[in-house]
Structures are given as C-alpha cells and as structure tokens.
C-alpha cells in the first residue's frame, strides 16, 4: 500500500497534465453547453436571449426527428460495426495467406482509410452512386437494369456502405495483426486434430480474435457515433429524416438554425447517450484496460 501511495505521489506530475487538460477540455465546454441548454439562445437573434428552463429539452425531445435520429444512429453504428468487423475479419484471413503481390494488394486494400470522409463521400456520391452519371448506374443499365437511385431509395444503406468502406481497412489492419499473433502451433494442433479450413476459422481463429474485435468495436464506435460529413454531403439527413443521426440533428439545430439553446440540449443528450453506449461497450473491453491485464 505504502509503495503504491508513494510512487503514485512521485509520478503524479506525469499523468496530471493529460488529466487536467482533458478535464478542462471536457468540463469547460460541457459546463457552457449545460448553461446554454437552459437559455433561449438563437445566434441570429441575440436580443431575445433569456432563461428558458427545460424548454429546450422539451422542444428537442418532442421533435419527431429526435426518436428517428436515435434509431438512425443505432442502425448506422450497428450496421457499420457488423460490416467492418465481418469484412475486416474475412480480409484479415485472406491477407494472412501468402500469395504473389500480397504486399501491394494489402496496401491497396487499406487505402480507403487514408481518404478524408469528405472526399470519400464526394467520390461515392458523384462518381459511384450517382443515379445518372455514376458508374453503378451505368453498370446496371448496361446489363439492362434500371439504375438504382441510391440516395433516394436506399439512403441509409448508401451511407452505411460509404462509412463501412472507409472503416473496413481499419478493422482489417488491427485484425490482421491480431491473426498474425496467433500461435502457429495452435493452428497446427488443430490441423493435426483434423480441422478443415472453415473449422479452423470458426473454432480457433475467431475466438482468438475476440479481443481484437472488441478493440475495433470500441474505437470505431467512438468515431461512428459522430459520423457527419458523409451524411451532410450525400443526403443532408434525408430524404425526410431517413438518415438524420443524432450528430446531424444537433448540427441542424446548431449550425443550420443557429438555435444554440436546442443544439446544446441536443449535445447534452448526445453526451448522455454516448456515455450509456460507452458504459456497455467499455464493460466488454474493460478486462483489456485493467492495469493487471
């Protein structure tokens, strides 16, 4: 005990800067946000500023778009997680194999991770999925099918595809390194036990990847909760509110309508929700974070 206390005192200055700045970075805006959320505060109309009580929250929570946006957030995060984890795992298994040109192929496969979300969205929207000029439209019509109007008829799916495309390489990278850390003797033992390729994957590789997958899920969730650029550029949250996620809703309040009061209320709600998600998420990877782990 005394050891712990003493060394913690001596090395406190090492961790203090990070904790202090992060704390400030969190608490100052948060406090201001909470304060604003209790005000009637429209940027465009500074004169009418006044105490609003919980009006902003009521206004937000009664907005029909609110529930939709939470559902959309869940759908978006969930589907992208599934796609990236599944896709990343399959790719990791594939690229774990030796084949000619593997290095170059791997580099090509991870390239989407380096592309700015804005650019990714623009490219997909205009060059790939555009119903008239896009490549997909041409491909479909050249085999005699009606071009798909992605952003009108499958808006959420389109957004999910774009976001997943960007994040698969990340999952792939982490899972690939995880696969490479699998004790080769374990694979050999399974081969001796008579496991086929599929059984090897299901019984040995997949369980081994559990931890890496939870790491991927953890990091990705943090970023996916605040997906924004892709939506703004492709669908602007629409049609209707079909692709409005919580971040986008808050964006609409804050930056399209300049209703800082409601936006702040939305921010607070988002923080609360995010922390609920984080709580469950973190539970599942907490083992990795424990000092003893």
């Amino acid at each position: 005990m005394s050891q712990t206390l003493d060394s913690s005192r001596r090395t406190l200055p090492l961790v203090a800067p990070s904790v202090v700045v992060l704390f400030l970075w969190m608490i100052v805006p948060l406090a201001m946000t909470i304060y604003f959320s209790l005000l009637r505060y429209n940027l465009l109309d500074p004169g009418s500023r006044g105490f609003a009580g919980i009006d902003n929250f009521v206004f937000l929570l009664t907005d029909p778009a609110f529930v939709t946006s939470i559902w959309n957030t869940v759908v978006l995060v969930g589907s992208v997680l599934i796609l990236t984890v599944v896709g990343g795992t399959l790719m990791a298994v594939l690229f774990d194999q030796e084949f000619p040109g593997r290095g170059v192929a791997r580099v090509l496969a991870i390239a989407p991770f380096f592309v700015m979300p804005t650019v990714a969205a623009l490219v997909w929207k205009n060059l790939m999925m555009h119903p008239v000029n896009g490549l997909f439209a041409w491909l479909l019509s050249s085999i005699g099918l009606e071009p798909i109007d992605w952003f009108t008829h499958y808006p959420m799916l389109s957004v999910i595809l774009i976001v997943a495309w960007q994040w698969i390489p990340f999952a792939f990278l982490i899972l690939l390194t995880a696969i490479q850390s699998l004790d080769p003797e374990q694979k050999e033992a399974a081969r001796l036990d008579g496991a086929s390729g599929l059984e090897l994957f299901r019984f040995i590789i997949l369980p081994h990847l559990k931890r890496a997958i939870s790491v991927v899920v953890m990091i990705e969730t943090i970023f996916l909760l605040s997906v924004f650029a892709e939506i703004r550029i492709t669908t602007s949250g629409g049609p209707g509110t079909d692709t409005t996620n919580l971040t986008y809703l808050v964006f609409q309040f804050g930056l399209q309508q300049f209703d800082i009061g409601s936006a702040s209320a939305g921010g607070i709600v988002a923080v609360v929700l995010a922390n609920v998600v984080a709580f469950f998420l973190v539970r599942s990877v907490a083992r990795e974070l424990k000092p003893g782990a």
Partner: protein
Amino acid sequence: MAALTLRNIHKRYGGVHIIKGVDLDIADGEFVVFVGPSGCGKSTLLRMIAGLEEISEGDLAIGGTRVNDTPPAERGIAMVFQSYALYPHMSVRDNMGFALRLAKVPDAQIKAKVDRAAQLLHLDQLLERKPAALSGGQRQRVAIGRAIVREPKVFLFDEPLSNLDASLRVQMRIEIARMHERLGATMIYVTHDQVEAMTMADKIVVLQGGVVEQVGSPLELYHHPRNRFVAGFIGSPKMNFLACTVRALGAQGVSVELPGGSRVTVPVDTAGVQPGQPLTLGVRPEHLVEGERAGSGTLNGQVLVVERLGGSTFLYVDVNGETLTLQVDGNSRTGVDDRVAIAVDGAVCQLFDATGVALTRHDRHPLADLGRHRAA
C-alpha cells in the same frame, strides 16, 4: 502397425538445406528420443513426421505405408507441442474432445473417452476449467490428454517439459514413461535435457546439423559413443577431453601418455594407430578418482573450484592449464587450492583420433544393449 521408416529424408527451405538425408527405423511401441544442439533440425524432423512440413526428398512410411502426401489428421499421429498449444478459449474437456468433435464422433462417446483419459491423467477435477486457470504441469497433462483421446498410433513430443520447473519435470517424466508402458504406442520425443533423454529412451537419436550422428540405446551412447561429439553431448557433467600421445600398441589396446607423463592403456582396436600419433583421451567426471591407484594413470593438479552437492562433490582441477572435472563423494574434504592426484583408469576411457572418431573398443559394456526397462 505403427512402425516408422525414414528413408533418405531431406528438407530444404528455399536454398537452405536443413535435414540432410536422415535414415531411421523406429519399431512399433518404441520410445525414441531425439537430442542435439539447438537448431540441428529436431523439430523440423518431428514436424515432417507429423505432416506439418512438406518433405523435400525421401520417403516416410508409417506402418509400412508411404505417407509423404497424407494430410496430418490422417496419419494416426498426435503431437504434443513444446508450448502445449492448448486452445485457450476452450475448457479442458473441450480441448481434449476437439479432435473427436471434428471427426463427428457422437457426444456420448466423446464424453466417455475424455473422461477415461482425464482419469488416467488425474484431470477429472479440472475438466471444466480453462487452460489459463491451470498450473504448468496440469496444462502439460491436458496436452497429453488431447493426444491420448485420439488413440494415435504414434505420439510426437516436442520438448514438452522444457517449460516446467525442476520438481514438476521429474514428476511428469515418470508419468510419461508410465503412460508409454500402458499404451504401448510408438513415441518420439525431442528434448535437450540429459536426464530425460537417458531415462526415457529405448533409443536415442543424436542429431547435429541435420545429420544423424549416432543411434542407440542410452547406455550404448554413454559407453560407446561413436565420436567425440556424441561423447561430449551425452553425460553430465560433460566428458573431459585430454590431449595425449600414443606410446605403444598391444593386445591390451593402445597405450597413451597423458600430460604429466603417466601412461594408461585403453582397450581399443589398434588398427590405423601409430606410436607418436596425437590422440584425444576422453574420460567422464564420474570415472576419475581422487588419489593414486595401482594400474591407473595419474594426473596431478590443483583444485580450482569445489562444488558440494551433498551427495556428491564436483572438483574442478587445473591440470597443466586445462580444467578437469571430477565427481567425487559428497563427504570428500578436498578444498580449493589443494593439490590432488587423479587416477585415470584406462578401461573406462575413450580415445578419439584427430577427426574426432572414436577408436573401437575391444569389449562391449554389459549394459550397452539393455532395453530401458527390461531386466538384464
């Protein structure tokens, strides 16, 4: 049948030649130990037998059938890895039953087989645990159990005890030996541990640089090493080597002059040996005796270090600038800096020529051809 035959087996990785033509016959039910310095190809050989590495050249037969191209799971072989390679996410029961489950054996049958193996290995209480919750020795037994349930014809062990502490090693060594007796399966065992090799093997295969140096029973290697490498590798502490010069040849064998001038006669063939020729005399620490003895050569030296183990004592003696190791009684009172005389009995010595090849002994040691646990 589970006899193994290796015929001119080669292994090359790209341009590197790892195994350079190994010929070996392993009888059904035999316990064979592979020893050799690190990197000599022991694991590679084992893995080729298991089917985990392709055989570059040569033929491998198990039970008379060529199996070069048979997948591992169909060779009737089980392997116990150095690191155990247990499946960390499965319980002990699932680890042991995995192969059977893959083979679509009915659940009830799997359970029965696993239970039987667990009993044999005293694992009954641990069947629901994960490997992480087991001690080293228990993990070892699970790894063996995983092999047993498959009822293989051949067991392969790759340094299975190297991760265990001394007392557990002794215990596991005995258990494996007993298991061999009970199951009667062929076993091939890689180790770098002297005691394991000597005590477990029916037959030891000494490898160096991808080549078999000598094959034989433990005591054959101990008493009749074919060359200086084998002599030095088998036995602990290591055999002492002394430069000597041939002085006379006779029916008794070769008489050589030791450093210090005294002579010993070693009962070996004189063919090809000439007086004046320099040879190397090899003598084991346990065969050197403190003091002078009639009929023995004598060396004189000064004690550098004394190591008392209680039951026995090692003396490290400087003899004309070379250090000799003696194993003497635990009650010996010889101390550091004491001058000692050392008796060398020619009858238990070896002679090696300049290329390291041992001169053939006249007699054969009575235990040299003894099976491991068959009475003489």
